[in-house]
């Protein structure tokens, strides 16, 4: 375990005056894991979106007949995916893909693609 003296030194250190940074430090010291859970959470939608962008284009910006999903309204994305999943919306293969995704994944994918610049706009 860490010695109390070190903790005091950290609290007094100018670089850790902000509570968030202190939490970050303690987490690294105690667990050796990510101090910034929020960052990992943010990255998850982005990471999972990699499963979509091979077909729908980088960040969801597509050329040709495959629809672009960049900048798609979140509600619409979630509604469409639910419809692909339950078969009320037919497609060549999206039904087969959508059945592999759970609600949490669809929610994060929807957030991610809604935040992407649409086709024709400068990439973020």
């Amino acid at each position, binding site marked *: 375990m*860490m010695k109390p003296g*070190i903790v005091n030194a*950290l609290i007094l*250190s100018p*670089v*850790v005056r902000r509570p*968030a*940074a202190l939490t*970050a*430090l303690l987490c*690294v*010291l105690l667990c*050796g*894991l*990510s*101090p*910034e859970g*929020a*960052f*990992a959470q*943010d*990255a*998850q939608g*982005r*990471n*999972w979106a*990699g*499963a*979509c*962008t*091979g*077909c*729908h*284009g*980088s960040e969801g910006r*597509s*050329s*040709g*007949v*495959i629809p672009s999903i960049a900048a798609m309204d979140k509600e619409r994305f979630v509604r469409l995916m639910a419809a692909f999943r339950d078969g009320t919306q037919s497609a*060549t*293969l999206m039904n*087969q*893909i*959508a*059945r*592999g*995704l759970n609600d949490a*994944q669809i929610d994060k994918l929807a957030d991610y693609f809604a935040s992407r610049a649409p086709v024709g706009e400068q990439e973020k």
Partner: protein
Amino acid sequence: MNRNRRQFVRALSATALLTAAAGCVSARPSSGTAGRVVVIGGGFGGATAARYLRMWSPDIAVTLIEPNMQFVSCPLSNRVLAGTWQLADLTSGYNGLERRGVRLVHQMAIDVDPVRQVVTLNDGQRLEYDRLVVSPGVELVYDDIPGLRDPSSRDIIPHAWKAGPQTALLRRQLEDMADGGVCAITVPRSPYRCPPGPYERACQIAHYFRNHKPRSKVLVLDANEDIQSKKALFHTAWEQRYPGIIEYRANNGLVDVDVATRTAMLDFDDVKADVLNVVPPQRAGRIARDAGLITANGKWCEVDFLTYESVAVPNVHVLGDAVMAAPRMPKSGHMANQHGKVCAAAIIELLHGNQPEQSPLITNTCYSFVSDRDVIHVASVHGYDRELRTMVPIEGAGGLSEAANEAEGAIAEAWGTNIWNDVLG
């Protein structure tokens, strides 16, 4: 860089200094960056990893080692054999990656020193890395085909299994062949790159023959017991579209080749062809073997599917066809592109001292042209199984086309444009 991220990087830098005294492991910044990544191989896996490392973490220095000046896509390259497309339709430069700050080095990697973490190139350059990504594709193995051990024999009996000059050579041979001739394609035992590829190739050549050399035949000599992907759809396509043109023979393993007479010597008989296309057995690309990354069957590289880090060599990641695949994970360009993104995300977290994503999600989509326009697909979704510690297909997801159709022909072309952009753009 978003606010959380900026805050975190700042916090981590401070942590690195403070924890050094406490004996804790910390991320190690190098040369003013979060780390140096060297990527060997600019195909679907390596180029994707290089691109996404820079896109998602501009504080990482990325060098891509690729001997070829241009990328030529294997997916969709069977269309060149039908004359529908030219190689130029499948070819792109690497300038998109350079615009993203990837340093391109057009050399061959000849050695990896995993202790000093240095890659040596054939011009003598030595590149240090914090993390190495090896995406070498497959090496075509002629050890058990004595007649084709001499590389010049493959100018007569092409493989055309790496898109480029070999594809053009096979096309030329088909054009030069007289009507009434036989083109034989030999298929190695699975696993090999692109499971449906040989059967799509049979369709493409048969399509060309039907329109230009209608008395000619395509003979598929398969070392496997049956078609390895989209089986029913290919059988239907052959029966309905190419009756009397495509003949399929299962359990016909290739033993040797007589190059002069273009004869395939099989387990039970010999077949003389006018055009002979031998797709040889394969294993992970050579640098993977030299670097000690091959751990399965003397052929493939086992990895941790959360990071694609080699199980044998720390700080070295392996992508694409070279990987010892998880259950029902095909060796495909699409899958390599998926590996590239999961690996890039994991390396970014590791270089910043974070835990990588624990629930990766990947898909595979594979289109095969059965004519110049009509296409069949197979698709799958894969998630991480914590108990089995591997990627597994998600139950109830994935599937095939109901039948070959033109709508998916247009989709397959759009897929090509989009994935090439996702790899190189």
